[in-house]
């Protein structure tokens, strides 16, 4: 492993970066499941927060071992998804988006104030979520292999989903919910299952990233995070299972690449500003441009098989000319 990263170091790919790319890929997969069924849910940052906090609190405050804590985080995410999903998934497009944005904010606010609410109700001071400052000094227990295994399981699931009854039902629902219902597909059931699975994947990603970061804070899981996750899926594409993986990894790697290629200092020297300390702003601009460009011009995403086929055809003009009558 180390040898691989030594080799990749010049292009900005060290192990830490790679780990964050894997997390991004998993998060992309989590929103892919709901988008595949035509549900525009922005709740996954909230589920990620739940997974992170449950698992970190269990390992740090209750001395749980790592793997059971991660699983507990996923279960917690799934349970809350069951409760939230039933009422929320009755809403369609914009209303669903707004409701899930609201859900994410509620989760963040509740985590931030958990200790205080507890104190207010039970008149007893505790320290569980650590308020706005979060939890610090978390030992790093997640390693690259955990992430790879988790991602592989998720991707295998997405791959199988595409050709399963479940996947076909979701695709039909995305096409037209009423038609799908008339075909005898249990729309409510499939939508909820997809929502729960997405939530559990996001919660898993949260637990793993929580044991990677040393520090977790509630603000890490606000609306900006939801936008990041959405961007992964939009960049990669939402109809082909490789899409969110490609999207998450590329988007997470792009800033490193820019840094390595000294793009920022170059652009900065043109506009007369030191941009190397403005990483967040530059990331934001990249995110925004990716969202607009892909939604407008490449709605199929980077991993759209159609796109590559037509590109291939264009790059090999000789073949097509010969083939044409």
């Amino acid at each position: 492993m180390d040898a691989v990263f030594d080799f990749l170091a010049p292009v900005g790919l060290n192990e830490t970066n790679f780990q964050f790319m894997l997390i991004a890929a998993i998060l992309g997969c989590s929103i892919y499941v709901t988008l595949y069924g035509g549900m525009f849910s922005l709740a996954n940052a909230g589920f990620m927060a739940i997974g992170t906090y449950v698992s970190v609190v269990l390992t740090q405050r209750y001395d749980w071992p790592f793997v059971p804590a991660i699983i507990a985080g996923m279960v917690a995410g799934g349970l809350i998804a069951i409760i939230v999903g039933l009422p929320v998934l009755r809403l369609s497009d914009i209303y669903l988006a707004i409701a899930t944005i609201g859900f994410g904010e509620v989760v963040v606010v509740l985590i931030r104030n958990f200790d205080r609410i507890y104190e207010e109700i039970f008149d007893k001071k505790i320290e569980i979520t650590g308020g706005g400052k979060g939890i610090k000094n978390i030992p790093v227990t997640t390693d690259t292999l955990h992430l790879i295994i988790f991602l592989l399981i998720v991707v295998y699931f997405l791959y199988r989903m595409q050709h399963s009854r479940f996947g076909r039902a979701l695709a039909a629902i995305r096409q037209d919910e009423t038609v799908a219902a008339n075909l005898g597909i249990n729309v409510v059931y499939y939508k909820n299952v997809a929502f729960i699975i997405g939530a559990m994947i996001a919660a898993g990603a949260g637990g793993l990233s929580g044991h990677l970061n040393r520090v977790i804070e509630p603000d890490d899981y606000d609306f900006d995070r939801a936008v990041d996750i959405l961007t992964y899926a939009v960049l990669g594409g939402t109809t082909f299972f490789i899409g969110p993986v490609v999207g998450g990894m590329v988007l997470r790697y792009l800033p490193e690449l820019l840094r390595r290629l000294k793009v920022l200092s170059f652009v900065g020297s043109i506009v007369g500003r030191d941009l190397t300390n403005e990483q967040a702003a530059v990331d934001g601009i990249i995110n925004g441009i990716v969202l607009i460009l892909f939604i407008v011009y490449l709605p199929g995403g980077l991993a759209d098989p159609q796109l590559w086929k037509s590109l291939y055809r264009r790059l090999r003009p000789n073949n097509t000319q010969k083939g044409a009558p």
Partner: protein
Amino acid sequence: MNLRTLFYVLSAIFLGFLIPYLIATYLFNKEVLSPEQQLANAMWRGSIYSLFALGYALIFSILGLLNLAHSSVFMWGGYIGLMSVLKLDMPIWVAMPVGMIGGGLVAVSVDVIAFMPLRRRNAPRISQLISSIGASVILLSLATLIFSSTPKRFPQDSIDALPGTADKPLTWLLDNANVRITPIQIAIFVIPIVLMFLLEYMVNSLKIGKAMRVVAFNQRIARLLSINVGNIFAFTFFLSGVLAGAAGVLQGLAFNSMTPYMGATVALKGLTVIVLGGLGNIRGAVVGGFLVANIEIMSIALGYGWLSDAVVFSSLFLILLVRPQGLLGESGKMRA
């Protein structure tokens, strides 16, 4: 119709205030500190929220799309106003319209970049939502690059130069309490109300406003009636930006501190406001603004300021589940 709006606004202010007040004092035996002051605060804060939400609602009602970049337009409007004071030495009463027009132009460019190409392609509403998020992120990041993220404020002498501000804020003595209201706060309360009535007058009575309603109802009819739909779209975006810009400058004055993130906090509150009022319901946006402000102010007054966001966002979430058409909306009613 305007009297009805006034009635709704007033009832939102008083019910939104009175109900929590009564519950707090009689059910929980909590003392509300200086209720007159809280009411005053809720009024000017609600006014800003309403003004902000009005632009959101306008775009939703005419174009049927949710412009999540609205909060960034708000922030840009505020900064354009602020910068014209800081860099160009404009007096505030000039900077305010400059910020409004600036906000309008930013909103039009959001339309051109994020929405126009999708409209041509007849893309689904969700694509437009995503691309508006993209526009919002770009505008925010550009602002942190250009204006930096350290807080900025209107210089004190520019505020002192406003009439009636020279020495001390007005202090009104009521029977048993001091209510501190600055002239700026009065302006903040009055300007949005005036703008709201102008907007409602325009949409209901002016030719261009009626054309906007035709576009909202059916674009085919509009085009057959020689209405240039593209221009109406641009005009609607411009108006929403003007309203957002006004709200941005007023917010900057009210809190006397601005960062590029000022939009992010208001964005989700504004969403709550228009959902409470009924998506795309212009009158509802006004009422919703005062309701949300009252919720916040009352939770601060009761010593639960730290929970105010939780209450606001929970109500956003719950209202969608229970009454997606909003408090004022009738189900199945037309958008405009």
